[in-house]
């Protein structure tokens, strides 16, 4: 038989209420999905911005030498002998020279000094030294 002391003690113990458990995972799932989505969206946005910045920088760095080349092509002094003749360089040359004839002359009589490997001579140089009796 429970004594009055026991009943009082039980009543005292019942004043201590057990802690409430965490919500069931299924209830939390939708919130978690939202929480997961938010950082994911931010990460995707950050990656997109980085890609855009990288692309912009890449395009700019590629464009700079092109404009430089075009600028150089416009200057006839920059035309080197080893540089192949292109439509762009021809147009630039024509813009700088007074006439079409002058441009063609310039292109035709430019000295083309192609370096030969060591120990080899050009045919013209050999023929020049030979005394040919006609």
């Amino acid at each position, binding site marked *: 038989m429970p004594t009055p002391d026991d009943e009082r*003690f039980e009543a005292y*113990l*019942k004043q201590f*209420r057990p*802690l409430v*458990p965490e919500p*069931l*995972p299924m209830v939390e*799932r939708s919130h978690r999905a939202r929480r997961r989505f938010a950082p994911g969206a931010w990460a995707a946005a950050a990656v997109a911005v980085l890609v855009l910045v990288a692309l912009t920088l890449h395009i700019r760095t590629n464009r700079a030498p092109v404009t430089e080349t075009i600028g150089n092509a416009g200057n006839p002094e920059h035309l080197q002998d080893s540089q192949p003749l292109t439509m762009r360089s021809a147009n630039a040359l024509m813009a700088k020279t007074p006439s079409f004839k002058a441009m063609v002359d310039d292109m035709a009589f430019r000295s083309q000094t192609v370096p030969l490997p060591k120990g080899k001579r050009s045919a013209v140089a050999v023929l020049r030294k030979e005394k040919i009796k006609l």
Partner: protein
Amino acid sequence: MHRTDGNTAEIEFLYRQHGPALLLFAHAITGERGRAQDAVHQVFLKLIEKGSLRQVADKKAYLFACTRNAALNDSKLRDRNAPLDTDSAWFIPPDRDYAGEQNLRRALEALPHDQRQVIVLHIWGELTFSQISDLVGLSSNTVASRYRYALAKLRDSMFAKENSCANS
């Protein structure tokens, strides 16, 4: 909640109603709050999946039995004699009596695990001795005597500590 049928709503209601006592009961078995929480969640999620609670006559006793099985299975898988985690709170104390809450926790920890289960089931689970006897597989008389022993020990332990604190 994805499934909003009547069964799920009823299970949610039971979770809100008995969740705290079930958690305390699982905590008294596993000795660790996280594992106790997992055991309770496991029981309710299985119930939601199966939806088999309608055929159960005594739902509260059934929930305690399921929680006991889940907690014991967990304890079997891990260290069965793991010490109780007495650092984290088990109760919401009345009038912010945190010292009393700690005192109660320590006193519960000092009880043998079978007596601790009976105390928790009867006082905070509000199960009758008959229900507890079905749950633990003992006679009602054995459960009642075990309860009285446990209650006396608990009281001695708590008030002895309080007296020693008052004297010191």
